[in-house]
């Protein structure tokens, strides 16, 4: 099977890699680029733990081939913090206790980031709809919504 030479910009840095066709984007990020902030949860397109932003849209990176990201922009949770300062979304999740175990958090934050980029002042319903593809099994949705509202209030 042929390999493909791809060029992907992740968190502003361009990376080149030779990948097998079947390599998933989440494995490119975690195993080849060592960006392990993106989690693998269900691995079946349900839970959203692997959510990253691909060309501005949040997607489940377990259901995108790495080669499909060739020439595109990817943002992961590692891209939120800038120069040692937490992004307002990260601050929101810490201030409002938006996590217990933290497993879903990177995906939740990336989905929230894309939501606020499109809709800076979402209603509670809009937040709940936006994160409906991200599962939290600690049942922390109330605080997750508060975390996103915190970030919105800070002008994330």
């Amino acid at each position, binding site marked *: 099977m042929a390999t493909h030479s791809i060029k992907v910009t992740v968190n502003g840095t361009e990376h080149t890699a030779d990948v*097998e*066709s079947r390599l998933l984007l989440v494995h490119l990020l975690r195993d080849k680029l060592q960006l392990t902030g993106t989690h693998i949860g269900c*691995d079946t397109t349900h839970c959203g733990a692997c959510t990253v932003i691909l060309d501005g849209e949040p997607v489940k990176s377990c259901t*995108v081939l790495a080669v499909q990201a060739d020439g595109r922009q990817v943002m992961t949770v590692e891209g939120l913090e800038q120069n040692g300062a937490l992004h307002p979304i990260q601050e929101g999740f810490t201030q409002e206790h938006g996590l217990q175990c933290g497993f879903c958090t990177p995906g939740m934050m990336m989905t929230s980031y894309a939501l606020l980029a499109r809709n800076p002042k979402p209603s509670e319903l809009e937040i709940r709809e936006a994160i409906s*593809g991200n599962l939290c099994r600690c049942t922390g949705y109330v605080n997750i919504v508060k975390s996103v509202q915190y970030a919105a209030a800070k002008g994330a």
Partner: protein
Amino acid sequence: MIPAPFDYHPASSLGEALTLLERYGDDAKVLAGGQSLLPILKLRLGRAGHLVDISRIAGLDYIKEDGGFLKIGAATREAELERSDVVRKKYPILDDTTAVIADPLVRNRATVGGNLAHGDPGNDHPATMLALGAQVVASGPKGERTIPIDKFFTGLFATALAPNEILTEIRVPTPPARSGGAYIKLERKVGDYATAGAAAQVTLSASGEVERAGIGLTNLGPTPIEAVEAEKYLKGKKPDDAAISEAAKLAAKAATPTADRRGAVDYKREMARVLTARALKLAVQRATGRA
């Protein structure tokens, strides 16, 4: 989970994609959004030696009204349909449908064409397109052909598309005045396939009788189902509670569900009746400007 090995071919034009399909035949699968295909390959429920990616082909994603149809490019993402003003204003049944497909993250990748071409009776667009009397355009080595949607679904995960054809466009007839439609899906949780779903599209005459009724059912048999007897029954009748109730019973008779973790056969058939009645009621309300 890692899929079995395959080779990936990013097609830069429709012609190139068709050439690749011709070359690899049955061993090739068309990749658009990948939200059904990649899970199937990962779970090894199916395999393909070659994936032909059509998502980089320019001009396959559009939503436009033209020549009496709403034309949807097959590679249009569900999220784009969701954000379309013309869909929200004039095709509420499509708006209902896209909003309940999987979840918002999946809808950023999933395509309308894929939802149909996959031939999954659990997908949501098929019932809606049956209700709307849509057509699909298949492009092949000899050019285009149009397939009426009621001839498209031929079996479980099987469609009228030949292995060397690609679904390139969906054509929804622009509804005349006094038309309305609705799609109602019963799901256990966001992102689940329907336990049962019903799509209804009606057009009323000036005096309020049903001129045309289209009814489609989701996940209630091996293929998406058009409730033809229910449609015929409604024609020429005032869509009052009694007529809707009778039509819903006829729709339930057309359902051939199987028992699974989403419910027993009798329960699903009863849901076919309830959901058809609700979808018809809302469709009529929308047709008469009451919803």
